[in-house]
């Protein structure tokens, strides 16, 4: 109840203070080889968590979410950017800062639909007829990632 009230309150404040970039949600989005956002003020971030898809605004309840292969959508004031991540964790902190640590993340539009389709067919083949159990499981994970990637590309 209290949490709900807090959320409503901050969303009102945000409409008044959209220009004040220093407050609001501060996003740090990093993969091991690249820093995508570093302490940047954004309006909203939508993540695909294991527990379900969720949208994060400023003053969201502090939480730790495991990311599943899917799209992380970053909404800056006017622009929306979509990144496909392979997995990782998102930590929402009490001070309205959101830390997303992923293993791999690339803009959705940079993926080639053709290559995804090709790899998906290959992975599906391996998942059914892999030589070892380990290989099959690895292929199944690959299928899962590629299917969600394909869905992300098609949804664009």
């Amino acid at each position, binding site marked *: 109840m209290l949490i709900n009230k807090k959320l409503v309150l901050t969303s009102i404040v945000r409409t008044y203070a959209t220009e004040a970039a220093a407050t609001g949600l501060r996003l740090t989005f*990093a993969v091991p080889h690249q820093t995508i956002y570093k302490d940047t003020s954004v309006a909203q971030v939508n993540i695909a968590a294991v527990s379900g898809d969720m949208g994060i605004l400023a003053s969201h309840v502090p939480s730790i979410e495991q990311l599943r292969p899917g799209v992380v959508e970053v909404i800056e004031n006017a622009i929306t950017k979509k990144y496909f991540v392979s997995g990782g964790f998102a*930590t929402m*902190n009490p001070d309205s800062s959101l830390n997303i640590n992923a293993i791999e993340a690339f803009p959705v539009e940079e993926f080639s639909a053709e290559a995804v389709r090709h790899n998906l067919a290959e992975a599906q083949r391996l998942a059914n007829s892999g030589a070892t159990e380990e290989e099959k499981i690895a292929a199944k994970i690959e299928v899962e990632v590629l299917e969600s990637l394909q869905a992300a590309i098609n949804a664009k």
Partner: protein
Amino acid sequence: MFATRAQPVASALSAGVQTRNMATLREIQLRLNSIKNIGKITKSMKMIASTKVSKAQRAMETARTFGASSAAIYKNSNATPLESEDNLFVVSSSDRGLCGGIHSSVAKATRKIIAQSEVKNAGIVVLGDKAKNQMSRSNRGDIKLSFNQIGKSIPTFAEASAAVDTIKASGVKFDNATIVYNKFTSAIAYEAVPITSYSLDALKGSEGFAAYEADEGVLEDYNDFLFANNIYWALVEGHASEMSAKRNAMENATKNAGEMVDRLTMTYNRTRQAAITSELVDIITGASAL
């Protein structure tokens, strides 16, 4: 005590140098050539290191952001180490030498931290052969695991997670893990500092952690992920420090080789002239005797 013992050694050395000054031209020539070659090698190693430095530094910047972003949870939840005897110390170094005191710096720092923490059950995991040699001199019994093949190029996240997997699979139990690595302070300075990782129990027990909403099931993975991130951070930053230390070490070596070449060339020329003079004297004395 030490100084008095060092004295006779030093005098013996200078006697050796004196005999070397009397060396024949050929001996000087040989030395000159070998030092010139060493100078060439160190110079090219310096060039290689300096091209790698900028790449390693860029990787370090991103790894720092990545590591700091994941380690923010410790700060936000006010995590404190559990009172426990099971501590793990991870020494992050590499296989490659010829880079100054970078490996002894982490080894020394780890020894100091272990001594200060006064834990009875200190497990040590060593990343890199160079630090392994140093740690096994003082803490052989405590080394649980060691990894090599580190430091050929910029460490990857896959390497860090493989290390964490192996540590987990080996059944090493720990409540707090301290990762000691060389922090890159500037192009000419590095400093061995620790990053602390906590066990899940320590994280759960910290005062700020209750504020976080999380599924019980993902926390185990989350904590392993944090540990891997910290190791990745330590490896990449350590690599950058190593490369810049290597560049400095090789630069100094090249400079020293150049100085030695100058000195030896001078001695060579003088000895050559002395030889010519004495031969001339011989000839002239011989001629005047006739």
